């Protein structure tokens, strides 16, 4: 018998060659992209052609972007090993808080927005501290907040409006154009009207372009996805998030300030909810007691479609990004098809399952997992 081979680090004989494609597809988020492509193919072949016009795509992206901002935050929190079921109620509550700051206190828009974020951060921190101090599962703690915040939204709305569950006319009076433009309406309007003028994009009969610009929520969505990805993959905080979710004890033993990381994530999630609340309230000019209903659920779905593990420690922000777009495309896309809306939920469920199955199938195929 010959002695052990003295091979140094040139080429390890125990590694098979893998193609670049395989390497790319191994990233969790790209499975979600595969699912997205499948869903898109389905709609291209069944839906009205107007779905994939510029206006149609913007139309899909706007709900996706609102859901997506929540989904990315939920994904970070899930990677960090916790859930926040109060996101949906937080949207309603911070919407009310924001509305009250603007209409009742008459704060300037910028201040009202800042104050809303502060309230959200405090509530998120409270969630986090309760989870950490009591060592109860975050599921149950934030569930309590789901009810409490939803209830407070109702009480607060009735108090603020004198008995109605709907608050209207928010932002109508304010005219600080700069802040408004960041948080509502559309961006790049000049570009789009130029494009329309040059017949590069579709117009209404009256000459205005069908799409007057990119809704700002989409820009926020993309920006947040990029930021979250950078944080997760390139920063110390990102490493701590993975570690806290992978095994909180091991992370703590290695000197990761797990409690601080988790509290921070809860605050981030609450602030993401506040951002969505501000975007939708300014856009709609109103808020009501049902805003954000079940959004916590949809956000978690989008994150899971995007490859996050429910047990924590694994996932990506870009995955959640694609997950939200899949969800948005399925839910808006069906209205472009000829299916009876009674079948809507059946299709929604089937499409979700297919998207995830396909994502999974592709990943296994490519990585050669058995």
């Amino acid at each position, binding site marked *: 018998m010959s002695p052990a081979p003295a091979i140094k680090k040139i080429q390890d004989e125990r590694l098979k060659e893998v193609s670049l494609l395989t390497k790319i597809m191994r990233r969790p988020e790209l499975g979600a992209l595969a699912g997205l492509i499948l869903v898109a193919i389905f709609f291209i072949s069944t839906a*009205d052609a*107007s*779905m994939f*016009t510029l*206006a*149609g795509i913007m*139309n899909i992206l*706007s*709900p996706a972007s*609102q859901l997506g901002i929540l989904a990315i935050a939920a994904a970070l929190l899930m990677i960090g090993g916790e859930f926040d079921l109060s996101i949906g109620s937080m949207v309603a509550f911070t919407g009310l808080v924001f509305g009250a700051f603007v209409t009742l206190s008459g704060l300037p828009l910028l201040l009202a927005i800042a104050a809303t974020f502060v309230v959200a951060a405090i509530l998120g921190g409270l969630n986090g501290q309760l989870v950490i101090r009591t060592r109860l599962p975050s599921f149950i703690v934030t569930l309590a907040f789901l009810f409490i915040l*939803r209830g407070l*939204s*109702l009480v607060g709305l009735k108090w603020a409006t004198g*008995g*109605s*569950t*709907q608050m*209207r*006319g*928010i932002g109508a009076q304010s005219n600080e154009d700069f802040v408004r433009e960041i948080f509502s309406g559309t961006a790049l309007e000049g570009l789009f009207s130029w494009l329309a003028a040059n017949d590069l994009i579709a117009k*209404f*009969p*009256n000459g*205005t372009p*069908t799409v007057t610009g990119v809704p700002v929520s989409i820009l926020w969505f993309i920006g947040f996805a990029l930021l979250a990805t950078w944080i997760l993959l390139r920063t110390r905080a990102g490493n701590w998030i993975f570690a806290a979710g992978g095994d909180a004890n091991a992370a703590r033993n290695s000197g990761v300030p797990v409690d601080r990381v988790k509290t921070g994530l809860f605050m981030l999630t609450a602030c993401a909810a506040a951002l969505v609340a501000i975007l*939708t309230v300014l*856009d*709609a*000019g*109103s808020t*009501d*007691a*049902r*805003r954000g*209903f*079940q959004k916590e659920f949809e956000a978690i779905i989008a994150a899971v479609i995007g490859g996050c593990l429910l047990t924590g420690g694994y996932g990506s922000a870009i995955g959640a990004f694609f997950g939200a777009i899949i969800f948005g495309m399925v*839910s*808006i896309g069906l*209205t*472009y098809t*000829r299916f*009876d*809306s*009674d079948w*809507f*939920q059946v299709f929604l469920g089937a499409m979700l399952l297919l998207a995830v199955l396909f994502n999974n199938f592709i990943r296994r195929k490519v990585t050669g997992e058995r």
Partner: protein
Amino acid sequence: AQQSSRIIVVTHGQANDPFWSVVKNGVAEAGKDMNVQVDYRAPETFDMVSMSQLIDAAVNQKPAGLVVSIPDASALTASIQKAVAAGIPVISMNSGSDVSKKLGAMLHVGQDEVEAGRIAGAKLKELGGKVGLCVNQEVGNVSLDLRCKGFTDGFGGKVTVLPVTNDPADVRAKVKAALAADASVDTVLALGAGTAGEPTVAAVKDAGKTGAVRVATFDLSAGFLKSVAAGEAVFAIDQQQYLQGYLPVAFLALNAKYGLMPGGNVPSGPNLITKEKANQVIDLSAKGIR
């Protein structure tokens, strides 16, 4: 099918909501009668943001007509105006009679929820009710909240809102509890016949107060109508929402074909179904027409 004769209906009521399923049946029937393509769309929950997105999606498909309900004018204004700007004829239905014209809709078909509630309240007051309970199976759903509000206005007496869920066992237990906790309650108005109304009748029976407590409900269900016929409940308030689905589609279809359009709003209800009329409508209700 021909792109030109397609009509899209976007409302805030889900397809599995008993009230809205009747609207949807009306829409479908009108589509068949008028020989046009109809699509009924609604968000998964009472969600104004996604409803406005559904309207946008409808506008993108350039239908021959658009039917919308307007439970929150602020949130839907932009989308409806976009439809009008795109040259799509719009008819509003169910809610939003006050803003319909202003937003550019051609007319409104329906009955205001507050008004319907007020009529129910007045009728119950007339029947001798003093202390009322409003059983709301979906607190926060603005149209249901408005029904309670109208009831409170019309009833005059003390009204408590009882939040319940869609679960009949839960409704029954909570109504029973409320009756036990406050013996002075003599009137109960449920906001949905099948979900809240029927268990309410059962709860009143359990509490041994059939007859002593006046039970009424919004909308119709065969079971509740039986109770009305049997004298266990006083009336069901019918908005004839079938018309809210049927008429706008018919109007828009005729508009597309011949350019016809009625000159003013069409009130579809309310219509109180009392003991005398109950038996005739049971069958229609079981089929989802009333």
